[in-house]
């Protein structure tokens, strides 16, 4: 018998059976949550195909492929001669290897057990798979918190809710859809696991848990530059606990274990190296480590010395530590051992600093501040449940809830200053919102009192039936409205995920005139053309945005890429694009350019094209060669950015402009030429007169999105290529020119 009904009408069950039932329910809930987490990230795979997204993931993918085909040590010592030509890049020492190692390990394990899966599919599916683990980690983290909140009756409800919230919250999905194979994909999982283990080790004061925390911290360091957030969060937590007089030896044990092991381990990552003892990002952790030793020492003296002596000793001690600390800091800074006052330090606190003094930071869109609409967009109703969750944590102060409070305040500040840091705020918002909803359901969804007969009889003496009816009404009003909000949340998340965060940006979706879906696959088409039709050692010059994609998809050597470590090299490429053909030829020959690849959106109306990015090329190269390039001269006298007949001379002569609009006029067959991005019209005569002498057009993709040019070989007779072109143009009469145009093969969109 599994269950029996006793005399009072209660269902009685064996405890072990109940436990099994509970476990079953819990497991099925988790399977549902994982299913939701993975399914909501698959929109792009279903709509397009299993493909790596955007820019940086292409580099990670390429690095992973290298790791899979070579050994791990070769990977760490990898010198990549296919990027930053002719400099190359010490890739193994300048990346966070965690992501690549993770997928390589998964790949190898699956191969061992007889499931050979293409490494690309593993890379594409890694983020969704890890997101379901994140949900599990969030569950454990929240459970750890709610266990310390005495006023919470049902500890597991908030934990499960937070896992459910986390699994589909758009703020996290934005970086973890299938195909966005980026460091953040695994980093958020590791963040949550590390925090969970940290909370656990603080509660238990266990060296074991602190060591596991350190191991996961090490994993996090190996995976994402954002590990600095943990490096500062944990010391801050400890520091505040000390200030609140909550010091105990559990804190001491767990922090010292974590700090010593974690720091030593993190220094094993080649890219991190000696940063943990040098840079200002890690100073707080070191300072708190020192402070803890001092606190322990004072505790010891307090027990052994008389109060008066202790007081005198403390004063002497304080002065000593203060002077030593300050002078040590000054000396170390002067000698250049540490650099605590760098520009980054200021830009985080003085938000205007970056604007004036570090323009490159100001230019990156991920460093923009966050308007409220982004908070709503990424977190939906969790955002207004968040403050009240923090309030509940305040009501039952414990070491663990203080962690939540600190994390909330800090996280919301950083998310407010920088859009991309929404990612680190999302977990704590989910946890706080889950605590709120959990508490609400605790109070209003708990029908035990009404249903249970005994209590009902007890109550009957005090409260009449009518009251019970009203009680039900108030309960249902809360349950129904909040149930509805939960439903709305799911709807919102699905809409956001499917519409905003599921575009691979390598393949574009658009609509035909009849409303049917069309897929624009120009990028891959062009990269594939490069792969099949050029020499294996050909050097392709393109703006740095496309460096990783060319490396990953076309497998050709690039000059600059998204790892923008060498500003001068970027400026050289920018200058080659920005100056006139004759000057550009010199630069390109010296660099060893074979092909030039540009993105042109004028035909399709794709606004992220190179003409729109052109000003950055000009600006960056002006920073290095102010006498050769001048931003001003690309603007008309009225300060407008024109590309039509009214464009300035410098603009018309620049290589980028010519490459973009070369032959564009022929598409319109004598009509006015219209640029769909800039919404500018140029006359057909003018557009047909744009000519290129040092480059020849070798490939233009279906929708003209990608255009590839080849640098012509030098003239056999040693003539200047531009002169040759000029002479040819002089010789053709007007009529010849017209027939030339007429007899050209048809330029049209091939759909």
């Amino acid at each position: 018998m599994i269950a029996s009904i006793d005399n009072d009408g209660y269902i009685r069950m064996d405890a072990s059976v109940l436990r099994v039932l509970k476990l079953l329910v819990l497991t099925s809930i988790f399977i549902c949550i994982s299913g939701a987490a993975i399914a909501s990230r698959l929109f792009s795979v279903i709509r397009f195909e299993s493909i790596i997204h955007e820019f940086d993931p292409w580099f990670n993918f390429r690095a992973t492929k290298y790791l899979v085909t070579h050994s791990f040590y070769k990977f760490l010592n990898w010198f990549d001669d296919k990027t930053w030509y002719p400099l190359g890049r010490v890739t193994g020492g300048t990346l966070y290897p965690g992501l690549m190692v993770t997928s390589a390990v998964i790949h190898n394990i699956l191969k061992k057990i007889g499931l050979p899966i293409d490494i690309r599919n593993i890379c594409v599916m890694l983020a969704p798979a890890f997101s379901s683990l994140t949900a599990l980690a969030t569950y454990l983290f929240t459970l750890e918190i709610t266990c310390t909140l005495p006023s919470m009756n049902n500890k597991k409800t908030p934990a499960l809710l937070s896992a459910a919230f986390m699994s589909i919250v758009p703020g996290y999905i934005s970086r973890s859809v299938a195909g966005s194979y980026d460091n953040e994909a695994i980093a958020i999982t590791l963040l949550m696991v590390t925090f969970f283990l940290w909370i656990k080790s603080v509660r238990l004061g266990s060296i074991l848990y602190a060591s596991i925390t350190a191991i996961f911290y090490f994993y996090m360091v190996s995976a994402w530059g954002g590990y600095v957030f943990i490096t500062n969060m944990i010391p801050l937590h400890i520091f505040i606990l000390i200030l609140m007089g909550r010091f105990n030896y559990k804190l001491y044990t767990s922090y010292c274990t974590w700090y010593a092991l974690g720091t030593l381990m993190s220094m094993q990552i080649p890219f991190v190296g000696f940063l943990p003892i040098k840079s200002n990002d890690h100073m707080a952790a070191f300072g708190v480590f020192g402070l803890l030793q001092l606190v322990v020492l004072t505790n010891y003296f307090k027990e052994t010395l008389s109060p008066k002596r202790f007081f005198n000793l403390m004063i002497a001690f304080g002065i000593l530590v203060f002077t030593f600390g300050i002078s040590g800091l000054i000396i170390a800074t002067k000698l250049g051992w540490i650099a605590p006052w760098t520009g980054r330090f200021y830009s985080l606190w003085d938000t205007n600093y970056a604007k004036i003094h570090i323009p490159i930071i100001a230019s990156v869109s991920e460093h923009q501040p966050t308007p409220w609409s982004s908070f709503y967009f990424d977190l939906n109703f969790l955002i207004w449940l968040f403050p009240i969750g923090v309030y509940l944590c305040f009501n039952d102060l414990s070491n663990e809830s203080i962690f939540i409070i600190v994390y909330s305040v800090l996280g919301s500040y950083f998310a407010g200053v920088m859009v991309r840091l929404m990612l680190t705020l999302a977990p704590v918002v989910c946890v706080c919102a889950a605590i709120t909803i959990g508490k609400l359901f605790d109070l209003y969804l708990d029908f035990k009192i009404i249903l249970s007969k005994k209590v009902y009889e007890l109550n009957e003496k005090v409260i009449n039936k009518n009251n019970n009816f009203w009680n039900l009404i108030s309960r249902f009003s809360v349950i129904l409205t909040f149930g509805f909000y939960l439903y709305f949340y799911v709807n919102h998340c699905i809409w956001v995920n499917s519409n905003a965060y599921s575009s691979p940006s390598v393949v574009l979706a658009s609509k035909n005139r009849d409303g049917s879906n069309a897929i624009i696959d120009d990028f891959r088409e062009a990269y594939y053309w490069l792969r099949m039709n050029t020499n294996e050692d050909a050097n392709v010059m393109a703006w740095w945005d496309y460096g990783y994609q060319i490396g990953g998809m076309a497998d050709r050597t690039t000059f600059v890429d998204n790892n923008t470590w060498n500003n001068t090299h970027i400026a050289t490429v920018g200058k080659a694009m920005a100056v006139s053909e004759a000057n550009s030829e010199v630069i390109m020959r010296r660099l060893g350019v074979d092909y030039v690849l540009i993105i042109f959106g004028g035909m399709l109306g794709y606004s992220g094209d190179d003409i729109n990015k052109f000003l950055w090329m000009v600006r960056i190269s002006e920073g290095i060669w102010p006498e050769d390039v001048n931003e001003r001269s690309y603007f008309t006298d009225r300060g407008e950015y024109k590309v039509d007949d009214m464009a300035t001379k410098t603009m018309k002569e620049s290589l980028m402009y010519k490459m973009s609009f070369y032959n564009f006029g022929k598409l319109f067959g004598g009509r006015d030429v219209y640029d769909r991005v800039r919404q500018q019209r140029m006359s057909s005569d003018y557009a047909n007169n744009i000519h290129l002498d040092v480059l020849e057009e070798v490939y233009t993709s279906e929708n003209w999105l990608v255009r590839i040019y080849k640098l012509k070989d030098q003239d056999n007779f040693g003539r200047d290529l531009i002169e040759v072109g000029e002479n040819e143009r002089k010789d053709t009469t007007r009529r010849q020119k017209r027939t030339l145009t007429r007899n050209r093969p048809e330029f049209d969109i091939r759909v």
Partner: protein
Amino acid sequence: MKISAIWSAILLFVQLSCAITYEKVLQNVGKDGLLHINDKNFLKSLKNDDYSLIIFITAEDPRVGCTICHEFGPQYKAMAYQYMNNLRSEDPDTYNPISDSNDKARVIFAYSDFSDSRKYFEQLGLASVPRLFYYEPGKGPQLATFSDEYSFLVSENIENFQNWVAQNVPKLLAKNLKIAPPDQKPLFLLSIVLIVMTAIVLYNFRENVAKIAQNRYVWQILCFVLIILFISGHMYNEIRHTDSYKKDREGNIIYISPGHQNQFGAETQILTVVYGAITIALGLLLSYFPTVKDAKLKVVGTVISCIVVSILYTYIVEMYHIKSPGYPLHLFNVFAN
């Protein structure tokens, strides 16, 4: 000897002429390196006898809603400050035009804001801000007939401006105007001084301070206010210096900026109130009503709180619709889709 001779000569010159010489005007230049022009002083101050004058005409009042003014203003100020710093520095390598024979080589950066110089703006016949004028020596009083004007680009970049100044002012190179990052040593010393001073103050009032610092409600409210400010986009306003509202062409006031990536100050204010109200309603639901003994009050209170929350939430969703018209979900007709 030589310098003192020039000094006395200049002093003599000052006494003789009523126009303002460089030496004299330098005394009027504020600590920020700017000559502030307003209605009271523009007739007097603009008589540039032996120096070039560059004046930046702006309107920083958020009600005017001039984005370029806000973008360019701080850069202009930083640059003027840098110029005056260079002038005052004793390093012989830095550019110093005080004793230059060419009048044009000396330059003063002036600044005028619409709020306190309406008359001056009228005299100039201005229709738009920001404007940036250059006057050759002696041409200052001609107001509207300036020697050169700088034309602003859509997105302003300080180097263009530095080059423009360098074109007009001989011997002044654009690199002389390059803004140096703030000297960090004084900042460091200042922070030490501040720490010591706060420590003293805290020590003197230690009992009261301890009482406040140990009060949980103080911290609760502080965290609360901070979180609500941050999540309602306060930092965005701080960093971008957004206007609190704008007027459209018909003069109607718009409080909510359309566009997902934009925001007005008023939105933050509205949202802090909304979030605050929701939090209070939820707080009552969570902590107050469950403990109430009076059954009627309990029911009425719970239902009213629920209604308040749903109304406010609907308001947030509808506000979001203004910002992002493509958003298809409404709180109360989700079932319609």
